[in-house]
């Protein structure tokens, strides 16, 4: 077995290198699972509550959008079954994400940076590096599911069922470690390797989303490892044989990866490196065009995220009426979200505010690209050409401003269509929801303006400062009222001043104020940037 010589040492190297990253992943995924189970136990203290939940699950569970995102509810009348309903689909997706990122980090990224070459020159077998990485990811998964199972058992869930649930999810996620092992052989760089593996994970999620929500296409779910994890039916009559599917697929992937590994050189990929165009397209001739080229990928990602959020919230807004009618606690919770109007409108106003905060996070991230370009010395090259400073910085601010409008409009549009179709009044509901989304824009822009002002005036604080301000604003907006903060503290958030459409009436004055504040912040930032030295290191 000389091909595996050194596996143990490389495994320990991986442990040493990733003690923080892997621990953070495991802890985060554990807390996610723990909080799902804990909130169900807390929210439904009696069997009568659980039975009501099971009925709701059957009702909400018939909602195709909910099923698409969360998977089918097999039996929500026990704590275990309700937890499995909430947990399995998103958890397997997240474990898959962790597994694929960790595998790429320890295989292809090590080769790309040349560190693997250094090690492979030592007494290390051909398979050792890959074997150590896969063992490491396996270990991470084992630790995660073990502590999760212990927590479930400690919370009083049945022992066998808890173990079966976590093993089922762990195996489903582990399949994607195998996928990333393959994509790491195929391409020469970590980014495309992650991209391809993530595309497979996304396809697996999508296949079962379609299969779960459309009965005539339910066979599609059988093509997805995430679908298998659902169909194992944890806490709802486990189908033992289903576990053979991920095991068999993992075995096939491992054999394939071993075959690929011996056919290529260290540092090379099976696929040739994809080449780019030998010349720039005609439109790539201005700072704005460059900024668009650099930022379009991120904008697409945030827009898709906003659409998914809009779909999931918009699709359940109508069900909130029913939920509130059945459960005074839900009604009270909704009333605490604030505003007047119908329960549906209050809920809509709340979700549109969440969309606004999502767009604010995008706007901050897009604005901070200025700082990254500057400190990584790419701005220097652009500014040494005939591009004025305000033109360069302004192009990034413009993309942030227009991009956040696109993110909001997309989320609002999808939420409006989803809610309109459920409510049976698409023409009436869509403009109300879309308007409620777009009204967030001035507050979103204030956040980008704070980033711009710090960039121009206090460039050393811009990254930490802007994210900190955003975190404070989001906390005040989300938890301020439940925590009983004073009015003046609540008013620190620009989102507090927005009219709560569609639950309240439209008022223009606060929007005008927020726009004026944005303009002042952006102008101060640009003026400061024109006057200061370029910063060359972070």
């Amino acid at each position, binding site marked *: 077995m000389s091909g595996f010589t050194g596996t143990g040492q490389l495994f320990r190297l991986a442990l040493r290198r990733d003690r923080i990253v892997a621990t953070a992943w495991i802890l985060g995924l554990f807390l996610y699972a723990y909080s799902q189970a804990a909130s169900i136990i807390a929210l439904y203290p009696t069997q009568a509550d659980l039975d009501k939940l099971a009925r709701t699950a059957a009702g909400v569970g018939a909602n195709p959008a909910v099923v698409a995102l969360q998977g089918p509810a097999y039996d929500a009348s026990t704590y275990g079954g309700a937890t499995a309903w909430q947990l399995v689909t998103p958890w397997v997706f997240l474990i898959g994400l962790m597994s694929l990122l960790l595998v790429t980090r320890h295989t292809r990224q090590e080769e790309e940076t040349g560190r693997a070459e250094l090690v492979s020159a030592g007494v290390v077998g051909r398979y050792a590096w890959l074997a150590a990485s896969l063992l490491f990811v396996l270990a991470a998964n084992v630790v995660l599911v073990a502590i999760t199972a212990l927590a479930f058992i400690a919370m009083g869930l049945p022992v066998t069922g808890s173990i079966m649930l976590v093993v089922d999810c762990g195996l489903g996620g582990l399949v994607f470690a195998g996928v990333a092992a393959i994509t790491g052989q195929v391409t020469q760089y970590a980014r495309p390797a992650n991209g391809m593996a993530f595309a497979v994970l996304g396809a697996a999620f999508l296949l079962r989303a379609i299969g779960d929500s459309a009965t005539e296409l339910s066979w599609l779910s059988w093509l997805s490892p995430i679908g298998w994890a659902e169909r194992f039916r944890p806490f709802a009559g486990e189908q033992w044989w289903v576990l053979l599917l991920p095991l068999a697929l993992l075995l096939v992937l491992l054999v394939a990866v071993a075959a690929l590994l011996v056919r290529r050189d260290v540092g090379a990929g099976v696929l040739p*490196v994809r080449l*780019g165009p030998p010349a720039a397209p005609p439109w790539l001739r201005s700072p704005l065009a460059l900024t668009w080229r650099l930022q379009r990928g991120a904008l697409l990602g945030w827009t898709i995220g906003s659409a998914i959020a809009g779909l999931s919230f918009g699709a359940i807004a109508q069900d909130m009426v029913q939920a509130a009618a059945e459960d005074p606690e839900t009604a009270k919770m909704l009333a605490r979200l604030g505003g007047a109007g119908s329960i549906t409108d209050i809920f809509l106003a709340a979700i549109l505010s969440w969309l606004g905060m999502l767009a604010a996070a995008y706007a901050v991230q897009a604005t901070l690209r200025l700082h990254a370009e500057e400190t990584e010395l790419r701005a*220097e090259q652009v500014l040494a050409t*005939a591009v004025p400073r305000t033109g360069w910085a302004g192009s990034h601010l413009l993309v942030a401003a227009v991009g956040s409008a696109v993110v909001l409009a997309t989320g609002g549009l999808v939420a409006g269509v989803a809610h309109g179709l459920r409510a049976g009044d698409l023409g009436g509901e869509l403009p109300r929801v879309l308007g409620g989304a777009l009204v967030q824009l001035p507050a979103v822009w204030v956040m980008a303006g704070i980033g711009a002002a710090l960039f121009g005036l206090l460039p050393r604080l811009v990254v930490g400062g802007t994210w900190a301000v955003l975190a404070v604003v989001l906390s005040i907006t989300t938890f301020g009222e439940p925590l009983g903060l004073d009015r003046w503290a609540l008013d620190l958030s620009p989102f507090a001043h927005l009219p709560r459409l569609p639950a309240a009436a439209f008022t223009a004055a606060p929007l005008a104020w927020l726009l004026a504040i944005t303009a002042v912040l952006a102008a101060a930032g640009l003026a400061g940037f024109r006057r200061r030295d370029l910063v060359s290191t972070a």
Partner: protein
Amino acid sequence: MMGATAISVSGLVKTFGPTRALDGLDLQVRTGEVHGFLGPNGAGKTTTIRILLGLLRADAGQAELLGGDPWRDATALHRRLAYVPGDVTLWPNLSGGEVIDLLGRLRGGLDPKRRADLLERFDLDPRKKARTYSKGNRQKVALIAALASDVELLLLDEPTAGLDPLMEASFREVIADERHGGRTVLLSSHILAEVEALCDRVSIIRAGRVVESGTLAELRHLTRTSITAELANPPDGLVELAGVHNLVLDGTRVHFQVDTARLDEALRRLSAAGVRSLTSQPPTLEELFLRHYQTEQVATPAGDGQPTREGER
């Protein structure tokens, strides 16, 4: 407003916190010359170039570039110059060809024939993504973008640091062509052979000041020639001769350095003793350079354009 000087700098001061990166720097670059800007890392070369580009603002002193103010007229001046940074970072997902075209267009256009010619001379595949380029190849991208632009002035900050000897030779050819084409070049470097091969005039910078400036011939005049000779008889009067240094006498073998101004007299004394063989080595720039840096090891090397946290502490 094209004068005889392309760059005229006097008394330039730039501090980063307590660090004085430039300490009264003077620099004159004449139109049409290749000017070597010589100094070790941290002497202030990059800081000077960044001020000339309007990326940094000088604390004191005057700077004039192509007849304009580098800070105030930055955008207009940048149409007439091209810059190659010492540490080239590119956008990882753009191809080399895209970056070359983009930088050229932002500068006001580039010559497609010259672009093709330079790609061939520097043996660069423009289809590769910038992520996959080595340091040398990233430097080639910036060099081609700069050299294919139709500009009057090239500001090159250690442009060959990552190039292999073959490409370094190509670079020298290209710069020689540029000189014939009448372009002005400020070439910052710590590679002395490169500066000796390419430059009409040289300025040597140390700790934020220019300590020596002139043509290579003028600078050589200030230095010493090494002489090794095999004589018929032991020489007379070499020891007392002013301008002779490090004399080693070994019977009829003699080795010494002599100030270039005293060379004639020293040779006369040697021939009086009867010369059997003689080797003379002209002063290299390296010796000149080392002399400036060895005589006085200043303990405060200024940050080479690094307004880093250390600088601000």
